[in-house]
Structures are given as C-alpha cells and as structure tokens.
C-alpha cells in the first residue's frame, strides 16, 4: 500500500508540474490521467490530492529553488510578508512583464501544494501596477492559474450550500474585481479556469457572469469616445482634443506651427512649441459680426481631461453683447422653400423644447476660436491670432486682450476665482476692479503693430 501511495504521489507531482501549461489542456490532462487509472487507484489518488491542504507530513518548509537562496546561506525569515519578498528577490530592479511571469513561475514550481497561494495572489495583485501589467489579461489568467484545480469545488449539496473555502473564493473575487477596476473583459480562458477551480456556482464564477453581463452593455455608452492609447505626438493629440471640444463637424483644424528645434548662430537652442487652432464656419460668422469697438480676449489655459491625461487649451472669446446692441435677425422666408423656418402657432400648449438655445452664442459671451499650444506665452498665442487674422480680417480692427495665467499648473479656471476674490473683498467696486484687473494683467496688443508684422 505504501508503495502504491508513493507511486501515486510521484504521479501527482508530475501532474501538478504541468500546471504551467494552459488551463484547458491541464484540465484535460487531469481528467485523462485520472480516468486512465484503475478504479481503486483512482480513489487513492483523490485521497492524495485532498492532502493538498493541510498534510502534517509536508508542512515543514517549502523547498526554495537553489538559485534564490542567498549566498550567505540564510534562509528566508518566517515573517508575514514573505510573498512580497519573493517579488523583491526575483525581480530585483527590472520590473517588467517578463519578470512578473518569472515570479509566478517560481512560485508555482516552489511547492507542489502551492502553500500560501492566497497570500501570494494578494501580493501579486498589489504589485501589478508596479510591474506595469495591471491591464494585461494574460497575467490575470496566469494568476488565476496559481490556484490548485478541482480542490475547492464543492462535492456535495451541503458544501455547495455553505461558503466552501471562503478565503480562496474571496481571493478569486478580488482578482476579478481588480480586472473590473481596470476595465478588462475576461475571456473564455478565465471562465474555464474559474470553473475548474471553484466549480460552476462559486462566487468567483458569479462575479465573472456579472462582469460579462454588464461590461458589454456599458462598452459603448460614451458618446464622445476616447481611444485607449492616446497619441504621443502633441500635434495629433491637439487635433483630437480640439475636434472633440468643438462640437461642429465643419470646424477646420489649422496647424499654425509644428514643433521644431532650431539652433541659432550663437549656439542657443530654441524650441518652437506647436500651435494648433480650430475654428468652425459659424464661429467665423460670429466673429465677423462682432462689434469692432469691443475687445476680444484670449483666455486660458483651461484643462481638458482625456482619460487620465490633462491637456490645456486657450479660447478666443468676447464679453456677452449687451442687450441694447443685440440685433434681431428676421428670418428670410426665401432661405428655404421646402419648409417654413418659423412657425407662429398660438396654441394653448407648452411645446416643450426650447429651440432658441444656441451653443455658440452663450450668455457668457461668444467663443470665436480655440487653440492648443505647447507653451502658453503671449508671443506664441500672438502667432495664433495673426494666423487667424488671415481668415478673419476683423481681428485687424479689434483690440485683443490676453488674459493668460502663468503656467498650466496653476490655472484652475483662474479667471473665475480671481474675479471672485475681488467680489468677496469688495463687491461694490466690482466694475472698477475689473478694469484694474484688466489694466494690471492684460496687455493690450496694439493693433497696427501686429498688422504691420503680418505685412512684413
């Protein structure tokens, strides 16, 4: 009997040694191996497998692969954080996907019984962002593969009724939750693994089913989608973000300056930042109608978030037109012959939708153009304005004021906050304050000089 047991143990060793292979294969192997055994042997093998968790004989020390024992011959201490140590030992400085895989492999090979796999998986989940593998589905599958197969599957209805192996199930759910947080959809392999490990009705499998139900539903909810990998090129990024915020298909993106590095005669290096602007036809129309006696403002930088990246843009805008200057434009009945542009029904009902809201013509003042640049200096933005002047000759007659904050780091809608402070301190002198503010931080760009510059 002892002989047979030894043999079976050996067989088990061989079987478990193969776990590095893919899960499906593994399962098949296990099945075929066990089914090929004679009946009695089959039973004993199960007994041996069940000794997986808590055999007093093998509980001493996990064998450490020779290559990872310190030169001094010190054994690992028995502290609670040994699993973290494994990561530190194996992946000393290079933290990549390859080393992460290696750590998992080392752990799998270390001990046939996978002693302490729950702690190891928790430690691995924590270390994932460090190694830069937190968005890698293969790695998650590999982590799930660390669980011993078919041990935690409930065997009878009582086990199924109660929480079978709760710590292990929690750990499995935690792996799935981290996948959920990083927005990774599980695949078939994940499902096969989980079913093998926890059985069809375990909590992790339930969690997986929930993920698979909701993720596809929410996949395309964003009406303004952002690609997963944002472009590294600043011009491309600027083009993408400007078209996103404009909300007008006809808007034209113009690259006023490409980023480049020049070396002057004196040997200094000059980096020219990129200047990318956008303007839609309706914005041009608005600008053409702008009263030349009122100044236009270049404001910014304002933040725009694209997933976790923050970019900054500048706007060219004006103060809202005072009500006495507003001109009501009558509808030209000949503009459209197919349907009337104006309905004058006097029904005793509320028809609901207001059609009067125009996105361009805000009560906060119209926006005429937007731009993004690498360096938010007045000189750079001036280039944008002079570029705009080619298409909008009215900019030659209008005074342009620059209300720019120092650097993208310190901006937070500063125009608003600042005027607010003034109000809080001295609300009565608001208008005067505004004027002072304007004089203090705003440089009036003298119109003739710029047009001269363009002529030259």
């Amino acid at each position: 009997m002892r002989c047979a047991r030894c043999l079976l143990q050996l067989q088990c060793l061989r079987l478990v040694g193969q776990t590095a292979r893919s899960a499906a294969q593994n399962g098949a192997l296990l099945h075929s191996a066990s089914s090929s055994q004679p009946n009695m042997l089959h039973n004993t093998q199960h007994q041996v497998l069940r000794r997986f968790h808590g055999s007093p004989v093998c509980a001493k020390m996990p064998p450490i692969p020779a290559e990872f024992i310190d030169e001094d011959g010190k054994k690992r201490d028995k502290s609670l954080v040994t699993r973290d140590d494994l990561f530190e030992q194996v992946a000393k400085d290079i933290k990549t996907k390859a080393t992460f895989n290696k750590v998992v492999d080392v752990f799998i090979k270390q001990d046939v019984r996978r002693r302490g796999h729950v702690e190891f998986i928790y430690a691995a989940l924590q270390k994932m962002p460090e190694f830069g593998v937190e968005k890698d589905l293969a790695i998650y599958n590999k982590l799930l593969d660390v669980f011993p197969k078919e041990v935690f599957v409930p065997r009878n209805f009582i086990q199924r009724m109660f929480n079978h192996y709760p710590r292990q199930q929690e750990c499995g759910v935690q792996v799935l939750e981290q996948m959920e947080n990083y927005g990774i959809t599980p695949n078939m392999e994940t499902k096969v693994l989980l079913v093998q490990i926890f059985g069809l009705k375990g909590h992790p499998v339930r969690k997986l089913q929930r993920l698979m139900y909701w993720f596809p539903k929410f996949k395309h909810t964003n009406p303004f989608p952002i690609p997963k990998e944002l472009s590294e090129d600043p011009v491309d990024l600027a083009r993408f973000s400007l078209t996103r915020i404009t909300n007008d298909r006809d808007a034209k993106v113009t690259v006023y300056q490409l980023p480049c590095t020049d070396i002057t005669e004196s040997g200094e290096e000059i980096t020219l930042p990129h200047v990318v602007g956008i303007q839609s036809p309706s914005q041009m129309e608005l600008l053409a109608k702008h009263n030349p006696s009122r100044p236009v403002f270049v404001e910014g930088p304002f933040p725009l978030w694209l997933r976790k990246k923050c970019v900054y843009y500048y706007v060219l805008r004006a103060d809202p037109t005072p009500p006495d200057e507003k001109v009501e434009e009558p509808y030209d009945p000949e503009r459209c012959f197919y349907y009337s542009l104006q309905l004058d029904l006097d029904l005793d009902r509320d028809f609901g939708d207001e059609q009067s809201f125009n996105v361009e013509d805000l009560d906060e003042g119209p926006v005429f153009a937007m731009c993004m640049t690498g360096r938010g200096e007045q000189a750079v933005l001036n280039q944008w304005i002079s570029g705009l002047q080619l298409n909008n000759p009215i900019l030659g007659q209008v005074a342009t004021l620059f209300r720019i904050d120092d650097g993208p780091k310190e901006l937070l809608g500063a125009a608003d906050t600042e005027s607010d402070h003034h109000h809080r301190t001295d609300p009565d002198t608001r208008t005067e304050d505004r004027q002072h503010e304007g004089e203090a931080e705003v440089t009036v760009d003298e119109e003739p000089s710029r047009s001269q510059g363009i002529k030259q």
Partner: protein
Amino acid sequence: MSLPKMARLPSVRLLSSIQQQLLPSIAPLTEPRRAASRYEYRRPGEPKKDKYPFQPVNFSFSKGLEGIKKHFALLKKEVTDRWVGPEGKPLLEHMLEQNQVLWEFRGPESLKQWTVSSDHEIGGQSEAHLKLGRNNDTCFLYGTLSSTPPRDGETRYSGYCTMRSQQPLRSFDRKKHFDWSNFNTLHLRVRGDGRPWMINLATETYFSHQGDDMYNYFLYTRGGPYWQEVKIPFSKFFLTSRGRIQDSQHCVWLDKVNTIGFTLGDKADGPLPAGDRFHWRQQRLRSH
C-alpha cells in the same frame, strides 16, 4: 406658446432673480461652505466621542420661534395649494406641462439646495466646493480629486466628489418626494472638463435595508467652452447599492424620487475645475 417658466419657481427665487437684474453687483458670488456631511470621519479603532445624543442639538428659543414660523407657513401653503390644484398648479397646467424646471442656479439661494461632499468623510484627501459662476446663473464645482486611500487598513478605494440635492421637506419636516411620473427624461445643461460623471437618483424605499439603493447612469462630458444638453431617459438608470450593480434590476419609482446627485470618481487625480452644471430641467418626450 410656452407657459411662463418663472411663475413656477418659488417666490423667493423669483425675488432674488429680479434683484439680480437690478443690482447685479450686490449678491455675493460664493456660498459659504456648509457642513459637508452628517458624520465626521472616525478612524477605525479610535474611541467614539463621549457625547450624549442630545448634546449637539441646538435648543435656542429663537430657533424654535423661527421653526414655528416656517413650518406653519409651509402648512398653510400646503392647505391652500390643494384648492388651486395638484402641487399648487392649476389642473390644466399640470396636465399639459411638457417640462418642468426643477433646479436652476439663480443667485446664492439656489446653492442651499445642494450638499457637496467628497471622500473627506471616509478619510480621503479630495476636496470639493460649490460656488456660483460668473454671471450668477450657473454653478461651478471645483476642488481636487485624489484617489489615495486613507491609511486605516480597511478602506481600499477612495477618490470621489459628490454633489447631491437636498431632500425636499414638507411642514414639520415630513418627507416630500418628487413626482416625476409624468416625465420620462432627465434633461441637464452641463459644461464639464471631459471627465465622466455619474448621476445618482435616490428614491424612497420600502424597507430600511434598501436605504443605500440608488439608480445610476453615466454623464459624459465633452469638455471645452461649450455647454452640453444631455437627455437621459429614466429607463436607462440601473439599480446599485453601495456601489455594486444589483443582479435584480427594477425601474425607478418615479413618483418617489428623493434626491439627485452627481458623483465624480474617475481615478484621474488632479484639480477639478469641472465647470459643472448649471441648470437643468426634465422633460417629457414628445410622441412623434
């Protein structure tokens, strides 16, 4: 053609908006910060404060008098409103109305209908404040978002900012619910900075253990200087409890809506000048 919207606003707000037009510079633009949450953060393991429950209660006489005045005025209004029609509106208007402006930001009064909170109350480091925008007709939510969880050994995730409307109350602090069963769409006018938000509808529940149930949907902002009009049908909302989507979903009890909230928690740490919203209304879809 359209019923006058202003008439549906409470008279206080009407007055304040008129006042704004006359004297635009007098109204202060920032609302003083109100207490963000009911409970302060207690680190696990810290002893509870040794206070009797009645100690924080303010027993002043003047407050009592004010309360009596307020509640009896509300009671009188409730009684007389019945004679006019449902919800104090004539029946015809009630039946024919296609949209109803529920919250709009006109003057500092309107900020009092909102509670702003952040993960500060679970020990996080985010901050959020609410103030009126430049022209006094928008509101502006700003602050910082930081997803560093507190080092208390329990909290795993952190990093949110929330703005929630206050529960409407009848006289003597009885709960009142919004009845939106005549409408099917939530209509917001928003300007964001590109971050996704979440809209939370909290409804009255039958059992007390459902107290954390909320109906959520996403609010995606485009970013940029333009305002967005967002229409979200109530049928889109899904049931969650404590941040977990529930397996058995139900539709919103539209006649028992308590509060609406907006949450930001997109894990992108950084300042939040999310020139968020402003003025929204809900409306019924037209059938054609």
